[in-house]
């Protein structure tokens, strides 16, 4: 089947306007008899479920957490981008579009990204109307700050808890629709398969995680809003429950998977402290505004940070990238940290860390305070004290979080940081309408592949999740459902539901009956190690080939030796985890195949064979200016389809930050 991205004809800046004015509509009476299933209640899922409920559709929303408010969007710290130009600093829809395309290293679709930039302003309006308490200036107007990869201030924020506040806004709108009877909420439920009838998505099989019962749910359409798959690496900044299962089941039912190897490794996370580590914690990108990153100039230097004099420190980002310094984009900063640690300059007990140092910022802010207050003869200790207060007002909550985890005071000693898996740009392939290759099956937010190319810019994930849910899907889904108004609700004793449920039932029983010796957790850790070592920050042909073999062997071991305690028909978190890890193993194999196929380096995908003399990523535009969309053909069998990327407006060039 050739891929049709359904991008409307016409000029880039009028496509969406024209689409909205001409797409098919469903009248209010018909909406009342149309059912829509939404999987996941993060920013994309909650905003979609609420908006579709408001329109009058009958919505069923599912999440595996105990409340929709806990989806992992809640953990986003820094902010949300929008082309409001409130700062009068030259921002525009075009600039946000351009920065996003360039930041993605020219591997995203122009039309989708332009639409994202167009609706970005509406998102801020909507959130403020809902009562999201964004940061404000003394005049009462909204405050902005700046993030990596841009030259304007377009990031709106609520302290270091922007994701939380946006999700609470969407959650409240969702609960309002629940109260009005337009949305039925199924928490502690996990989707375990898509049901297709006559080639169209018509429902799901879900497991009630409290009772273990399997349930059949019909929908005229199904939306996958289940987030990213960073937990394939075991260790990531994702929540423990974040998983690929819903997206992977959709993939196995015919939805192509786009650019699975595009993963974002965030440069500033708290390093691994030992084998017991269960997850990694991010330290916001905003810290790089004031923190200076360095390692000792001497290899294996065992001195404490404060004992190393200034001239024996290597501020390697400032040295390598004088133009952008510590504020280079995430992919570049992460690779540079890895390079130093691999070369033996790492710090801390594990030597897998670099310093993020605020001493200079504390001194600088202290001196500014002295000047502001017109003080004279101030001792250095007092200057530092004042500087610390300023730093605390900017980053206090992050410093506190760092201290809780590490037991070290970052006002006194530099933070130790190291890159960690954070976000996945890849995901289910979708067309302009956010529909996958299965009719009636959509993917929104991080679960789709569409807007960030090979590297996402900071503060753009929240924007995309809410754009998809509030402002894109309410239009595009009508264009499909307008032709479905004659389809009556299909009873769930239809043979397709029976067969799908049996398949899920059999798989669960097969898992439970293995009764092997190795825990799910331990097998997941082993998968994570393969992925991190061979499909992580740097990849090469030999390593990827080895990884594929190792993952296939691990899959065999999983299906013959996993041990799942407890029963099927009860609350059983180990069984939930086993279902998810089984899917991560299959996905891991596909990620390595995709990384092996892509013989170039771009954004977060760094193939060691394709780099410049200075170690920078080297794209191969003539060969790889395409989206790799993989079709599932059976166990370990995937067929590659290519969607050529056409740049009508932006001219791809080499990114340089020197």
């Amino acid at each position: 089947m050739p891929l049709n991205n359904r991008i409307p004809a016409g000029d880039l800046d009028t496509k969406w306007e024209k689409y909205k004015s001409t797409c098919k509509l469903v009248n209010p009476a018909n909406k009342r008899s149309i059912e829509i299933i939404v999987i996941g209640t993060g920013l994309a899922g909650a905003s979609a479920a609420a908006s579709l409920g408001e329109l009058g559709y009958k919505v069923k929303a599912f999440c595996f957490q105990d409340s929709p408010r806990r989806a992992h969007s809640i953990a986003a710290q820094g902010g949300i981008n929008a082309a409001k130009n409130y700062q009068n600093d030259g921002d525009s829809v075009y600039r946000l579009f351009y920065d996003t395309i360039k930041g993605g290293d020219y591997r995203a679709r122009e039309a989708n990204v332009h639409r994202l930039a167009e609706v970005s302003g509406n998102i801020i309006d909507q959130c403020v109307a809902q009562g999201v308490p964004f940061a404000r200036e003394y005049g009462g107007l909204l405050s902005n700050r700046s993030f990596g990869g841009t030259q304007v201030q377009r990031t709106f924020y609520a302290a270091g808890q922007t994701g939380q506040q946006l999700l609470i806004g969407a959650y409240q709108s969702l609960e309002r629709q629940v109260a009005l009877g337009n949305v039925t909420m199924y928490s502690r439920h996990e989707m375990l398969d898509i049901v297709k009838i006559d080639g169209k998505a018509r429902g799901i099989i879900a497991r009630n995680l409290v009772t273990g019962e399997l349930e059949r749910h019909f929908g005229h359409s199904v939306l996958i809003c289940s987030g990213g798959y960073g937990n394939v690496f075991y260790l990531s900044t994702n929540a423990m429950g974040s998983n690929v299962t819903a997206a992977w089941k959709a993939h196995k039912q015919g939805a192509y998977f786009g650019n699975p190897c595009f993963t974002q490794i965030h440069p500033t996370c708290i390093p691994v402290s030992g084998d017991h580590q269960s997850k990694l914690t991010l330290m916001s990108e905003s810290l790089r505004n004031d923190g200076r990153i360095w390692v000792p100039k001497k290899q294996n230097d065992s001195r404490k940070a404060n004992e190393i004099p200034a001239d024996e420190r290597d501020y390697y980002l400032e040295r390598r990238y004088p133009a952008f310094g510590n504020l280079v984009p995430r992919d570049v900063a992460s690779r540079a940290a890895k390079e130093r640690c691999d070369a033996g300059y790492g710090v801390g007990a594990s030597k897998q860390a670099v310093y993020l140092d605020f001493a200079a910022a504390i001194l600088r802010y202290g001196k500014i305070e002295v000047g502001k207050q017109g003080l004279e003869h101030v001792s250095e200790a007092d200057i530092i004290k004042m500087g610390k207060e300023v730093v605390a007002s900017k980053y206090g909550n992050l410093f506190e979080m760092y201290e809780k985890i590490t037991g070290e005071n970052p006002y006194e000693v530099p933070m130790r940081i190291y890159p960690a898996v954070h976000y996945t740009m890849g995901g289910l392939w979708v067309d302009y309408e956010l529909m996958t290759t299965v009719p009636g099956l959509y993917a929104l937010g991080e679960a789709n592949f569409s807007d960030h190319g090979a590297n996402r810019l900071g503060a753009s994930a929240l924007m995309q999740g809410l754009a998809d849910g509030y402002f894109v899907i309410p239009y595009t889904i009508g264009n499909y459902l307008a032709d479905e108004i004659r389809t009556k609700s299909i009873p769930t004793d239809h043979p397709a539901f029976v067969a799908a449920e049996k398949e899920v039932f059999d798989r669960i029983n097969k898992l439970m009956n293995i009764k092997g010796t190795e825990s799910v957790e331990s097998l997941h850790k082993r998968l994570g190690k393969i992925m991190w070592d061979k499909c992580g920050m740097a990849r090469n042909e030999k390593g990827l080939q080895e990884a594929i073999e190792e993952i296939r062997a691990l899959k065999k071991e999983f299906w013959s030796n996993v041990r799942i305690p407890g029963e099927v028909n009860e609350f059983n978190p180990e069984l939930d985890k086993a279902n998810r890890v089984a899917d991560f193993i299959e996905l891991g194999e596909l990620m390595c195949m995709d990384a092996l196929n892509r013989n170039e380096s771009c954004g977060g995908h760094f193939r060691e064979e394709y780099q410049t003399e200075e170690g920078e990523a080297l794209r191969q535009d003539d060969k790889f200016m395409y989206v790799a969309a993989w079709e599932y053909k059976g166990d370990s069998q995937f067929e590659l389809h290519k969607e050529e990327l056409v740049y009508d407006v932006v001219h791809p060039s080499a990114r340089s930050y020197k």
Partner: protein
Amino acid sequence: MEHYNMNLTLKVWKQKNAKAAGRFETYQVKGISSEMSFLEMFDVLNEQLIAEGKEPVAFDHDCREGICGMCSMYINGRAHGPWHHNTTCQLHMREYKDGDTIVVEPWRADAFPVIKDLVVNRNSFDHIVQAGGYISVNTGNAQDANSLPIEKQKADDSFAAAACIGCGACVAACPNASAMLFLSAKVAHLAYLPQGDVERKERVVNMVHQMDKEGFGSCTNIGACEAECPKGISLENIAKLNREYMVATFAGDR
């Protein structure tokens, strides 16, 4: 930070399901690193139980960075354990020393029935929000965000209340199992903002009514909720709630 290992005795609440009787089970864990988080110590315990062919302890957790509100352990008589302004997932084992005994229970409240072991059902919180914890604005209805200036102080106060993570520690800590701090945080979040003004009277009355219906206890101004709240939600929100409720019920124009 000097790192050390420790052996611990754990007394953990085990309960098969909502209907079964529960009891404390005693476990020994060895070689726990001071650098582990409290939940990583539970991971070690569960791996040990699985290896021994026993059933692991069920507990709620997700983000493990103190923001999702999923984790909910009552540790040695304190909601989320001994650290101030902290969630269970952010508690680290350097708090403990070799030979310590740690008692872990679920949140205890009629409105939070136990699902299994340390896992409770907190749907009652969602029901309170459904009763009015929102501003009725459909997608697409919004005016330009800067057309409505809001005093910085009010925006900051609103944010401080909206920082609630809905974990339920306030209820667990309260001898009356009252949900007043949770409810008041939501009412205050919306009442500080001009957008919340139109529905403020109905909101507070309906939400208070729903709280009572869910089976939470009454507030007697003890303040344990504020002391144990991981996000430092202030008791002032309860005062604000009471004012809102008085105005709504006595003003007579409802």
